[in-house]
């Protein structure tokens, strides 16, 4: 008997994605179809000046523009051999904390959260409203940090190659300290709330990949590491992964080479926590222990727990940076453009974001490659769904559909990172992609 279900247009994710699952004689095929329209960033970046790269790539994603700015300026700085001062480095880390807070609280409280409380959105159910309100207040604080440093929360404007166009005043930064301290304390409770949710059985055996930095929990620097033995430089990472266009779908998928075979891997908060937990503050680790969170996390639905841990960390780290901040001597380092090529990876809220640029000797882009975290996770997302459906074949289709939605949402896919996304062929008809009736 053949069974089929489709989720035409998945709500509460960033961007436009649908899922098709086909079950026949115990065989399961899952396709994540992305119908986000392609935008050709890598094409129109060619011939642009290096100073446009951060602003342009930020427009790939309104949720994580800072991630794009960070990967972009670090890659260009590598080509020009620019060394930024320690406090500029810290300020960029603070900006990234703002984005982690904003993006993680959006996902925890508005996108994935409602799944655990049986509500269709964050505001329809009375019991969920106080939780949503807390999330919105966290998110607001993240946005405030982004605004202090970058002028606005979406597509901030002060980041540039060499440093910042203008540095924030310590006084203004410090004004956020009391709220950060309060949010940090509340977020410790929130780790506990997240840990008490019910996750079901969704065990995965997957290679977790994240940056690892001997100094700190990774954001802008480090080597690429995995729980299955990878430890390579950023540019070396491009030698062990490949992107390929898959027949059924829409997106370029990434795969990693392992003993001569190509297989999916996972980036994002679960991978980061699994690989870097010893870099978390003792208080957070103690709280994790009290809540019975054991590492490594192997259930994808516990992404909300990993995100809550990182949310707490981002409050803690933001407060530390602000307390220790002293204005650097210059806002922007001196440098001369020159030709060259470089790869840089930073940890976007959703995982490793790879940028590669090749510049000519006046600093114009000759070529570039952008690999967003979501396209790296798509392969694992399909595999995880297939495994889930395979082990629940006796369940009704409605149940499989609802649970599949929740699983996909757990990956926090960000489809608008659509640099690499292509429209599937079936969409050539001018028929609405469903959900719209």
């Amino acid at each position, binding site marked *: 008997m053949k069974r089929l279900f489709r989720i035409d247009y998945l709500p509460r994710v*960033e961007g436009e994605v649908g899922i098709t699952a086909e079950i026949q004689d115990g065989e399961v095929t899952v396709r994540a179809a992305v119908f986000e329209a392609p935008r*050709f960033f890598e094409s129109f970046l060619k011939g642009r000046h290096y100073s446009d790269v951060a602003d342009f790539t930020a427009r790939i994603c*309104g949720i994580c523009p800072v991630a794009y700015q960070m990967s972009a300026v670090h890659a260009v700085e590598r080509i020009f051999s620019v060394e930024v001062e320690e406090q500029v480095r810290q300020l960029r880390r603070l900006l990234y904390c703002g984005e982690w807070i904003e993006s993680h609280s959006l996902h925890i409280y508005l996108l994935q959260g409602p799944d655990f409380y049986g509500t269709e959105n964050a505001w329809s159910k009375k019991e969920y409203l106080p939780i949503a309100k807390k999330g919105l207040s966290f998110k607001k604080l993240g946005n405030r940090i982004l605004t202090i440093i970058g002028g606005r929360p979406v597509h901030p404007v002060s980041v540039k190659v060499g440093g910042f166009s203008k540095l924030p005043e310590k006084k203004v930064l410090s004004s956020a300290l009391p709220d950060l301290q309060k949010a940090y304390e509340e977020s410790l409770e929130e780790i506990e709330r997240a840990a008490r949710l019910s996750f079901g059985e969704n065990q995965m055996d997957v290679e977790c990949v994240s940056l690892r930095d001997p100094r700190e929990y990774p954001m802008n620097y480090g080597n690429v590491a995995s729980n299955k033995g990878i430890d390579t430089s950023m540019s070396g990472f491009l030698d062990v992964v490949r992107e390929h266009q898959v027949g059924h779908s829409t997106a370029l998928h990434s795969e990693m080479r392992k003993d001569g075979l190509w297989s999916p891997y996972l980036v994002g908060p679960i991978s980061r926590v699994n690989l870097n937990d010893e870099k978390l503050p003792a208080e957070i680790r103690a709280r994790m222990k009290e809540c019975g969170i054991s590492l490594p996390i192997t259930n994808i639905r516990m992404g909300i727990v990993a995100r809550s841990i990182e949310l707490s960390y981002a409050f803690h780290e933001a407060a530390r940076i602000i307390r220790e901040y002293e204005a650097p001597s210059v806002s922007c380092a001196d440098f001369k453009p020159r030709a060259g090529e470089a790869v840089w990876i930073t940890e976007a809220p959703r995982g490793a974001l790879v940028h590669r640029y090749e510049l000519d000797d006046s600093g114009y882009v000759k070529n570039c490659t952008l690999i967003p975290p979501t396209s790296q996770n798509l392969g694992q997302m399909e595999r995880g769904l297939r495994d889930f459906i395979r082990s629940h074949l006796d369940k009704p289709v409605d149940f499989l559909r609802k649970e599949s939605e929740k699983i996909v949402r757990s990956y926090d896919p960000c489809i608008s990172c659509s640099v690499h996304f292509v429209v599937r062929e079936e969409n050539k008809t001018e028929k609405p992609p469903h959900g719209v009736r």
Partner: protein
Amino acid sequence: MKRPRIGIFKFTSCDGCQLSVLNLEEELLDLVGLFQVAFFREATDRPLRGHLDIALVEGSISTGWQRSHVVEVRERTRYLVTIGACATSGGLQALRNWTSIEDYKKSVYPSPGMIETLPCSTPISDHVYVDYELWGCPVGSDELSETLASFLLDKRPGIPGYSLCMECKRKGTPCLLIAGSAPCLGPVTRAGCGVLCPSLERPCYGCFGPREGANIDALLNVFRKKGLSPHECSLLLDKMNTYSYRKARSREGRL
């Protein structure tokens, strides 16, 4: 009173303008109280049914499906408001309009034949009647709440059409163009960002698009005198609002 039905739609975009709706934060919950959120895929499971009093539309039109879907949204809607540079002006992805789409496809995808897309990325107003346009990359949160409040009060939103320079002078921000010799697009760009870039000592790069009656070539002549090449000048305009700046220039009859 029956709460007006609001829908939020997405076409080709980065989701940043929808996020600006969510960024209203506590105001968001008030908004939910004043309106009935009938469609907002990014935040809720409800499918689209029935008619809308107001639609906020993010994103440009760049595929065949979108072209017909936007007509459907228009037919269901009393007031259609575009939010942000993509919906109002085609967005950064409109840079494809000035080149060959086939070359673009080839340079990104191994099998370019699989990709279905229109050769141009165009604003919503090229396809359906738009009642009100909100500019910005991203749209300004204040302008967003002003527009929604105006809708409830049945008045025209008070959104300025004058240049960023006006705001800059009012705020007393030093002029980057005159004092700093930087190629600032302020004189030809709409106010609305709250003097974001100049306050951060960075020249305006045109998030809010051309102001009404912008004399773009006069400004480019100033840039030329400061030593910029014609190519560098056009790169300055070819960003998130490339389509609108080029249109404004051709209206001046100089392109």
